[in-house]
C-alpha cells in the first residue's frame, strides 16, 4: 500500500515550527524520546521502545563451516525486516531502498567495528565455527528506525548466551542449557547509532526525528559511536551538502547521547539479570504496560509557560473595554423601571409594530439584547419585508442616549396612535 502523501500545509507547519526551534512533541532539538528496553523470556530477545517506535531483536546461533579466507573466525549475520505491521508503506518481499540502507548501516555499525570477538566463536579451526545471527523486526514505525534497531541489536547481543561446547579429540559435543550453563558472548564495546536530520539545506538540525519530521527532512547523518568516544561509522544520506563543522558538532552531540544510552542499556541488563536470578517473571507479556481504559491517567505534556503572563496581559490591554453597566434596576420615572442600560437605541428598526403586548421591563430586556446584537448593524436598516404592512421608521436619532425605556414607551405610544 502506498504511503499517504504529506499535505503541503502540514509540511509548511513542520518546517516553520522547526525554524522556531519547536518540535511537535515538545522536545528540544537535541533531545531523544524516552527509551524503554525490555527482554523476552529466552536469552537474546530484546524489545526497544524509542517513543512510539518499537523494534524487536533476536539473536540465535548455529554451527557452520567457516569462510575459506577466515578459517578461525566466527560469522556474524545481521538482518533487519521491515514488516507491514510497522507501517502500511512497508510491503512484504519488496527490497526497498530503506531496507537496504538500514541493513547496510547495521552491518557497518556492528560488524566492521569488530564489537564482538569473532575468534572466540571458533570451535574447530577450518571446520566448525559459530554463526551468530541477529534478526531485527520492526513492530511500529514512528521515525528513527535505525537508532532503535542498533540499540536493540547490541542489547540483544549482550543479553545472549550461547550453548557450551565440549571437544574430545574429533568429537564436538554441544551441551544443552540443562547440562551446562550457556556462555555469554565476549563483546568489546557497544556501538550505538545516533541519527541527525537536516532541514532547509542544512540550516537546522534535529536529533532523533519522529516520523513526520523524517518526511520533511532533506537528509540524514548517522553516526555510530561507543562510549569510549570512538566513532564506529559515519554515513550521510539524502542529497544534503554538509560542512566540516557540522559533522564535527554532530559527533560531539553524539558522544554525549551515546554515553547516556549505554548507561541505560547496562542498567536494563542488570535489572534483567537480577530479576531472573530471583526467579521473577520476565518476558514480553510482563513488559507490556497495564493500560486500563477505566483508569484516569493522563500523561503530562510539557508546555511552554515562560511568556504566558506577559502575553495574557498584552491581550487584555489590547482588548476593548467592556460596555459600562449601571447597577440595575434603575427608576428613571415613576411607574417605570429599567434593567440594564445601553448607548444606542435601535428600537423601531427591527421590532414588529404589531407587537403591542409589551410589558415595559420585558421589552427593555429584549430590546437591550437586540441592541447589543445590532450595534454593529446600525447602518443597515432592514425592516420586515412583508408588503402588507406599512412600515414607518420612527426617528431613531432623537433617542440615542440612555434611551431604554423612554423611547420604547414613546415608540409604542406612537405606533399605537398610527395604527388607529
Amino acid at each position, binding site marked *: 500500500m502506498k504511503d499517504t502523501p504529506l499535505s503541503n500545509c502540514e509540511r509548511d507547519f513542520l518546517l516553520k515550527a522547526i525554524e522556531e526551534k519547536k518540535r511537535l512533541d515538545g522536545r528540544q532539538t537535541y533531545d531523544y524520546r524516552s527509551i524503554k528496553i525490555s527482554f523476552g523470556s529466552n536469552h537474546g530477545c530484546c524489545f526497544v521502545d524509542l517513543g512510539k517506535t518499537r523494534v524487536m531483536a533476536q539473536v540465535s546461533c548455529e554451527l557452520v563451516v567457516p569462510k575459506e579466507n577466515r578459517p578461525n573466525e566466527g560469522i556474524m549475520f545481521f538482518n533487519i525486516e521491515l514488516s507491514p505491521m510497522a507501517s502500511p508503506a512497508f510491503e512484504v518481499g519488496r*527490497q526497498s*531502498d530503506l531496507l*537496504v*540502507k538500514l*541493513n*547496510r548501516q547495521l552491518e*557497518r555499525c556492528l560488524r*566492521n*567495528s*569488530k564489537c564482538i570477538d569473532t575468534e572466540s566463536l571458533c570451535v574447530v579451526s577450518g571446520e566448525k565455527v559459530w554463526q551468530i545471527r541477529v534478526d531485527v523486526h520492526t513492530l511500529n514505525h514512528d521515525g528513527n528506525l535505525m537508532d532503535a534497531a542498533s540499540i536493540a541489536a547490541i542489547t540483544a547481543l549482550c543479553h545472549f548466551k550461547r550453548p557450551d561446547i565440549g571437544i574430545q579429540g574429533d568429537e564436538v559435543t554441544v551441551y544443552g542449557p540443562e547440562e551446562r550453563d550457556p556462555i555469554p558472548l565476549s563483546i568489546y564495546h557497544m556501538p550505538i547509532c545516533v541519527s541527525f536530520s537536516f532541514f532547509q539545506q542544512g540550516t537546522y538540525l534535529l536529533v532523533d526525528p519522529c516520523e513526520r519530521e523524517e518526511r520533511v527532512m532533506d537528509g540524514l*547523518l548517522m553516526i555510530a*559511536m561507543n562510549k*569510549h*568516544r*570512538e*566513532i*564506529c*561509522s*559515519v*554515513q*550521510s*544520506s*539524502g*542529497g*544534503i*551538502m*554538509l*560542512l*566540516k563543522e557540522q*559533522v*564535527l558538532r554532530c*559527533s*560531539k552531540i553524539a*558522544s554525549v547521547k551515546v554515553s547516556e544510552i549505554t548507561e541505560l542499556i547496562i542498567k536494563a541488563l542488570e535489572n534483567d539479570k537480577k530479576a531472573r536470578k530471583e526467579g521473577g517473571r520476565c518476558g514480553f507479556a510482563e513488559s507490556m504496560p497495564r493500560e486500563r481504559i477505566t483508569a484516569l491517567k493522563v500523561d503530562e505534556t510539557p508546555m511552554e509557560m515562560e511568556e504566558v503572563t506577559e502575553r495574557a496581559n498584552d491581550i487584555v490591554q489590547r482588548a476593548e473595554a467592556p460596555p459600562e453597566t449601571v447597577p440595575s434596576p434603575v427608576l428613571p420615572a415613576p411607574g417605570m423601571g429599567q434593567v440594564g442600560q445601553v448607548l444606542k437605541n435601535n428600537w423601531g428598526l427591527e421590532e414588529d409594530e404589531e407587537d403591542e403586548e409589551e410589558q415595559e421591563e420585558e421589552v427593555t430586556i429584549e430590546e437591550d439584547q437586540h441592541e447589543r446584537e445590532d450595534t454593529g448593524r446600525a447602518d443597515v436598516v432592514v425592516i420586515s419585508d412583508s408588503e402588507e404592512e406599512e412600515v414607518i421608521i420612527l426617528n431613531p436619532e432623537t433617542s440615542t442616549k440612555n434611551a431604554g425605556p423612554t423611547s420604547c414607551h414613546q415608540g409604542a405610544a406612537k405606533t399605537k396612535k398610527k395604527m388607529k
Partner: protein
Amino acid sequence: MAGLELLSDQGYRLDGRKASELRKVQARMGVFAQADGSAYIEQGNTKVLAVVYGPHEMRASRGRTLYDRAVINCQYSMATFSTAERKRRPHGDRKSTEMSLHLKQTFEAAVMTQLYPRSQIDIYVKILQSDGGNYSACVNAATLAVIDAGIPMRDYVCACTVGFVDETPLADLSHVEEGGGSSLAMALLPRGGQIALLQMDARLHQDHLETLMEAAMTACKGVSKVLDEVVRQHLQVSVLTGE
C-alpha cells in the same frame, strides 16, 4: 595481515608512496560513441568505466517523474573478474545496491536537475579492476562522464578514500590498506568545500575525526585538479580535431 607494515618508519607506504600522495590517475573521456557521455579512469590499479545516458524521457515507471527536476538513476556493478576471487553476483546484492544509492545521492546534489524537469539521467558505473577506493573512483569517473555528456553541474564532484594508520592520515587507500585500519570515503565539491557524501567504517577516536576529514578534503582537492586537467585536455583535442 599482521606482518604488513602499512606505514614504514621512513614514512613510505607499501607501494612506495608518501602518506599524503595520491595514486597515479589516468583518465579518458568520450570512450564510447553510442552513449551521451562516457569516461574511463584508472586510479593506480583500480579501473572504472562510467557511462551516462540522458537527459531523456522517463521510460520505465512514468509515475516516478518529478514535475520540477530530473530523476537520476545510478547503477553500480563490479565485473566478475574485478576482484581476486571471482564475484558471484555482480549486481543486485546489498553492497552494490547501497553503492548505487550513494552515487545517486551524490549526483542529485551536484547535478543541476532543475533544468530538466520530468526527465531521467542514467549513470552506469562498472568496476573492471578493484584495488581499493572503489567508491571514489566511481564518483570521479561518473563526474567525467557527466561532463562529457554536457549536463551542467554545480562543481566537480571529487572523491577520495583516506585511512588512518599510526596517527597519520593516508590518502587514496589501496585494497590492502583498506583492510587495515579505518577508512573514510568523502565526496566533495571543491570550490565550496561542501561534502556531498561522507562514509566511514571501523573504529576511529573522535579526536582524530577532524584531522582525517581535513586530509580527505585536501586529497579531494588534489583529485579535482587532475580531473580539471583531463577535461581541459580533452576539450583541446576535440577542438583541434574538430569533433
